[in-house]
């Protein structure tokens, strides 16, 4: 077990991390400063809306959640920080898995088994099966709506929404979920354009808020800052999957220009994928870069430098996939593909998606196969649900988008059923006042820390390869001390001069809490498996770690952790 070290000790051992933090502090932004707010929060109006089911988020999961909740008879409202079909990762996802569309000798049972083998047991087979089983029906609906006819999704997403007259409230940042009498009662946030606070009284809420990152420089996920996860955690929901990492690299030339890095992929119309199970985009490249430095020549996943390197993340045996037992980076490679996939040509840099876990492996803990959380009435779908549909590594190509569509539909129907059996709760005046004060606090401060500066400092602490990807106890402890400092002394003093910066302030606070979760869960998991790699615990430990880590807020407000055995989610 790693030894705990004091703050003074860690400063002595963590010069490199401190260096990054210092670098961040020398960036464009000033840290502490007076707040020249152009918005007086006392003068902002509020608006109140009622519904049976509130869908938060407007990507693929949100689309199906709203449509299926409506079709199941619920009065449904969708609210989004962005715009329907152009929020989160959905606009950039171009492949959707459709099981059974083409002739294949892989049965559903075999498919689930192969995913489980590749995922080293980390997947939840109930959700793996559900995704495959429902994928064809959801893809069929998308085809009908014109999804495959354009590279831009707003028009096709609008079709079923407008046909049903489902209200969509765009550019409203939800900052708080509301719980009354132990059940979900709605959500609150603010509109950037209308300069209003929004209260939603809802019998049920579905989080379709996507994954999250640390506003990384290389992936278009800077609007995804773990908002749903942290809002739910704050009202008592259990969260899982924080120790896993998405290992996508970026390009060394203009690493933040994801569009350029991904070629013309964003301009392509989407298409479907068929059965192809892999074990990709974990931290193999991060390990190679750590051990031998850059440059690494990139090709197809699995094809890297032609060198032999000891150690590193293990890869599983996959029947018929060309993967080798106990394979490590630099060992025998899978057959060559068709060259580098989008975003993976040329000399790479790491951390393109820093802060994000593997799709569907991070988010609210489901208590059944209906996307339900431990809070009655609160559901999540897509990347906001820690369903472990694919496991803690990328397995089936295109299943991320399919899983969001399928889980959106499942959650929509489940939430509508739940809502039909409960009464609407009205928010009290006191509760509204309390929420308004919390939401607008950064606007009201006379002085404070700039959210952009705090975010840049957090990036400097968390994104380095030797903290986030190639993990060891002493550096994670060091980084944790910095993050706790941000949590205790910066998060409460974030300032906002306008509503754009107010959104950044809430996003920054969410990222700080998520960073704490990531470091603590990574410290707790004293083994290496899939996309979680510990340099000090390089082996997979099946005796102690056939388990997921769940995180929840204790009664004293502190972060608590528990193990949940793999494959222990019960059906409803």
């Amino acid at each position, binding site marked *: 077990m790693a030894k705990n070290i004091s703050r003074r000790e860690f400063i002595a051992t963590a010069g490199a991390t401190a260096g990054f933090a210092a670098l961040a502090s020398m960036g464009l932004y000033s840290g502490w400063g007076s707040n020249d707010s152009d918005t007086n929060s006392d003068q902002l109006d509020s608006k109140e809306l009622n519904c049976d089911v509130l869908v938060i988020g407007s990507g693929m999961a949100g689309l199906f959640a709203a449509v299926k909740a409506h079709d199941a008879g619920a009065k449904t409202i969708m609210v989004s920080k962005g715009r329907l079909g152009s929020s989160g990762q959905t606009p950039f996802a171009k492949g959707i898995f459709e099981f059974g569309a083409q002739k294949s000798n892989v049965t559903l049972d075999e498919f689930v088994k192969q995913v489980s083998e590749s995922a080293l047991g980390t997947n939840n087979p109930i959700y793996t099966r559900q995704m495959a089983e429902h994928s064809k029906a959801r893809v069929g609906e998308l085809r009908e709506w014109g999804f495959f006819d354009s*590279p831009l999704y707003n028009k096709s997403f609008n079709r079923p929404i407008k046909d049903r007259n489902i209200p969509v409230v765009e550019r409203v940042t939800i900052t708080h979920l509301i719980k009354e009498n132990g059940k979900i009662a709605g959500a609150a946030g603010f509109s*950037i354009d209308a300069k209003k606070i929004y209260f939603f009284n809802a019998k049920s809420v579905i989080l379709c808020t996507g994954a999250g990152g640390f506003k990384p420089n*290389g992936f278009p996920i800077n609007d995804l800052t773990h908002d749903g996860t942290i809002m739910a955690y704050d009202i008592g929901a259990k969260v899982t999957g924080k120790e896993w990492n998405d290992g996508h690299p970026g390009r060394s030339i203009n*690493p933040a220009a*994801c*569009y350029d890095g991904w070629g013309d992929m964003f*301009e392509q119309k989407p298409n479907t994928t068929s059965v192809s199970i892999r074990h990709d985009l974990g931290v193999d490249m991060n390990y190679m870069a750590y051990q031998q430095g850059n440059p690494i020549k990139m090709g197809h996943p699995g094809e890297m430098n032609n060198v032999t390197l000891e150690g590193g993340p293990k890869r599983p045996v996959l029947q018929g996939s060309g993967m080798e037992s106990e394979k490590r980076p630099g060992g025998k490679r899978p057959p060559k593909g068709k060259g580098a996939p989008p975003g993976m040509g040329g000399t790479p840099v*790491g951390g393109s998606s820093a802060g994000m876990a593997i799709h569907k492996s991070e988010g609210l803990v489901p208590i059944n196969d209906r996307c339900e959380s431990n809070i009655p009435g609160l559901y999540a779908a897509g990347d906001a649900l820690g369903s472990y549909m694919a496991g803690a590594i990328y397995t089936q190509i295109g299943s991320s988008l399919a899983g969001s569509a399928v889980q959106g539909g499942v959650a929509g129907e489940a939430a509508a059923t739940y809502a039909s059996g409960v009464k609407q709760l009205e928010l009290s005046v006191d509760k509204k006042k309390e929420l308004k004060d919390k939401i607008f606090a950064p606007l009201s401060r006379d002085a404070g820390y700039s959210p952009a500066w705090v975010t840049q400092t957090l990036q400097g602490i968390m994104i380095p390869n030797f903290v986030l990807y190639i993990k060891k106890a002493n550096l994670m402890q060091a980084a944790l001390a910095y993050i706790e400092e941000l949590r205790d002394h910066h998060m409460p003093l974030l300032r906002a001069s306008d509503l754009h910066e107010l959104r950044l302030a809430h996003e920054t606070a969410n990222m700080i809490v998520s960073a704490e979760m990531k470091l603590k869960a990574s410290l707790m998991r004293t083994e290496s498996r899939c996309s979680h790699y510990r340099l000090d615990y390089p082996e997979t430990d099946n005796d102690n770690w056939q388990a997921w880590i769940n995180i929840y807020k204790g009664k004293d407000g502190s972060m608590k952790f528990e193990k949940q055995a793999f494959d222990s989610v019960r059906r409803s």
Partner: protein
Amino acid sequence: MPINNISGCIGCGTCVSTCPTDVIRLNKDGKAEIKYPEDCQICHLCRMYCPTDAITITPEKTIPVIVSWG
């Protein structure tokens, strides 16, 4: 500069609502302007949705970029 020029704007506001990171706003004349360039994630959605091809984007970020290794 990531999103660095808007020329030929007809004031439809599509780019404003399309931008995932709230970089663009309509100015007093009802035309799109780049308000928060440092938050541009260079995803090109605004350019792709613009009905008049008014937006030009370049690949450089306006602030120092932090990567994991490289």
